[in-house]
């Protein structure tokens, strides 16, 4: 049984089709990402699954439970981190977790959650003294107070610096090790590629692509880019003649080639350099990213 199954979900706000007919399934124990630009409908989708918003039409089942008919039962088995929640300024981290525990019938030990969020040193600090990253980690810990099977994280790293983001990723990885199903939204490509088993790319209320990051890249962007430098320049036509190369840009011995078969082209480059007695270094293979997938499908970038 899939953890979540959504069929033909719609939510319109007047003329704005925030979510316009979405169908997808989230498997048990997978980390599922919804990637898309701001306003794509990611949060609206998530909030309908979380019982926070009424869909206009469509069906949502969480662990086989219809979200609209069994809202309370669903609320007990999901954990939710909302995009913008500020907590009680006057309470400490430990107290905040303890208070939220009172909202659920089944709960986790407070200390365990404090540890999971790496907030041991801050456990007795007021919530308003936390940094942005610590605050986000607290809000994820609060999504876990009821030891849920399914965890929803709405843009868990937005606005954080790379280091703070890294620590959130570690927390999500930890959830994976605990066999939880995680659904997260993001507009960071690296985040979706690094964390997610599968990704749904959303734009204008539609899912425009769905699959593992590799599948999506292979399916939509067939070519990779290799850059390298030669100790002595060779003619562009020689590089162009290498196996698989479809495009070459070269200047002062630095080359940028496009190829659908990067491995074979790479071997070709090394062999060519060897034959000519020049040295090839700074060889970089830039893999296509989900950004390229989005660009390919929509003609736009995710973040503009």
């Amino acid at each position, binding site marked *: 049984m899939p953890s979540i199954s959504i069929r033909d979900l719609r939510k319109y706000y007047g003329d704005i089709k925030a979510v316009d007919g979405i169908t997808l399934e989230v498997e048990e124990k997978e980390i599922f990402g919804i990637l898309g630009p701001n306003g794509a409908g990611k949060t609206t989708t998530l909030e309908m699954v*979380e*019982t*926070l918003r009424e869909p206009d039409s469509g069906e949502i089942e969480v662990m086989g439970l219809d979200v609209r008919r069994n809202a*309370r039962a669903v*609320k*007990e088995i*999901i954990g*939710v981190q*909302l995009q*913008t*929640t*500020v*907590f*009680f300024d*006057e*309470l400490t981290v430990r*107290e905040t977790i*303890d*208070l*939220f525990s*009172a*909202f*659920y*019938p089944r709960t986790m030990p407070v200390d365990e959650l404090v540890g999971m969020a790496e907030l041991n040193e801050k456990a007795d600090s007021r919530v308003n003294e936390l940094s942005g990253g610590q605050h986000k980690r607290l809000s994820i810990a*609060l999504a876990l107070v*009821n030891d849920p099977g399914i965890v929803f994280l709405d843009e868990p790293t937005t606005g954080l610096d790379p280091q703070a983001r890294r620590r959130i990723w570690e927390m999500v990885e930890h959830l994976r090790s605990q066999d939880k199903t995680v659904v997260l939204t993001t507009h960071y490509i690296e985040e979706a590629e690094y964390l997610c088993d599968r990704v749904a790319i959303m734009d204008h209320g539609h899912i425009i692509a769905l699959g593992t990051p590799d599948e999506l890249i292979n399916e939509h962007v067939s070519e990779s880019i290799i850059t390298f430098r030669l100790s002595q320049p060779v003619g562009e036509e020689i590089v162009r003649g290498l196996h698989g190369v479809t495009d070459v840009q070269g200047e002062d011995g630095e080359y940028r080639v496009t190829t659908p078969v990067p491995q074979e082209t790479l071997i070709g480059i090394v062999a060519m350099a060897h034959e000519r007695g020049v040295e090839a270094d700074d060889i970089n293979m830039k893999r296509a990213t989900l950004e390229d997938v989005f660009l390919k499908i929509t003609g736009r970038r995710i973040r503009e």
Partner: protein
Amino acid sequence: MRKFLKIFAYDFKITIRQREAMFWLLIFPVLIMIILGFVFGSAGDVKLKVGIVDLDGSPVSRAIVEAFEGIDAIVTEVGSEDEERAAIRDGDRNGIIIISEGFGEQVTSGLQGELTIIINRSEITTAQITSSTLRGIIDEIGQRMSGAPEIIEVNEEEAQDVKDFEYIDFMVPGIIAITLMFGGLMGYNLEIASYREKGILRRIKVSPLSLPTFLAGGIFNVLVFTLVQTVLLLLVGTLVFNLSINANYLYLAVLVLIGALSFLALGFLIASLTKNMRSASLAANAVSMPMMFLSGVFFSVDWVPAPLKIIAQCLPLYYLGDGLREVMTNSAGLLDIWLDLVVLVGMGLIAFIASVRFFRWE
């Protein structure tokens, strides 16, 4: 129950830790009371308040009533004998004049007419002034009517069972009423508005906890603090100003809780109707400030012009102040203040229903 208690315990902690709010909640009303008590406590009533019972209804008696009404230094009330006698017992009159039936006829036929005056002797400072002022005015009226002051004979009667009533006795119930109002309009309701703004309400919505349970913890916390606040005011009033309380404390507690809940409901309505905490706070100010000054909680509405009195009686705070005053100083029971209770409970229910209707999670 476990949830409720935990939520209450944390609301209590939050309240205690809000230093600034604690000041406004607990200390500020006491300061106001002390300031007002010292400034006005000894000044006494500036104007004499006189009740006239016109049993005669003749042109002559009406002329006397009008003459009194024309005197600036005296606030004149006209009422039935029962009303006025009750008023002087409650300490609401410095004196009353009873014009007996046939008085006008006697005077116009040249006979000596008889008036009865009753002086409130419990207010020692003013009793003598009241007596001599009333006699002087009546003599003056007699002089003008017939050229001889002897035409009106004044019989003086001692007022019975008059309560010792001072400004502080009047003011403390008013301060309590105001405190309850501010507590309801600018306390927990604004907190909820901020929870809405911060997304805490949405976070609660995605949990199995019901909002009523969450609110119940907070409201219980408000009521606990309200009672503490009331006791504190009564203590300071008693210790510093010799406040005399003739109250059934159970009735007083019931009235305080009803008043607190009623204004809290109004506060929730304000929070439900406004967009964010800031506008809720402004709206609460706009509602509470005029009420504070117009509801007759610092001064008796009997001392102000009639239009202001009518305005005061349209404001819910008036009824809370009135009820508290009756219970605290006149030993009134809950039945005696039924009108006050009906107004408060009615407002509370209407505001509650409306705020549920207009409630928003975000």
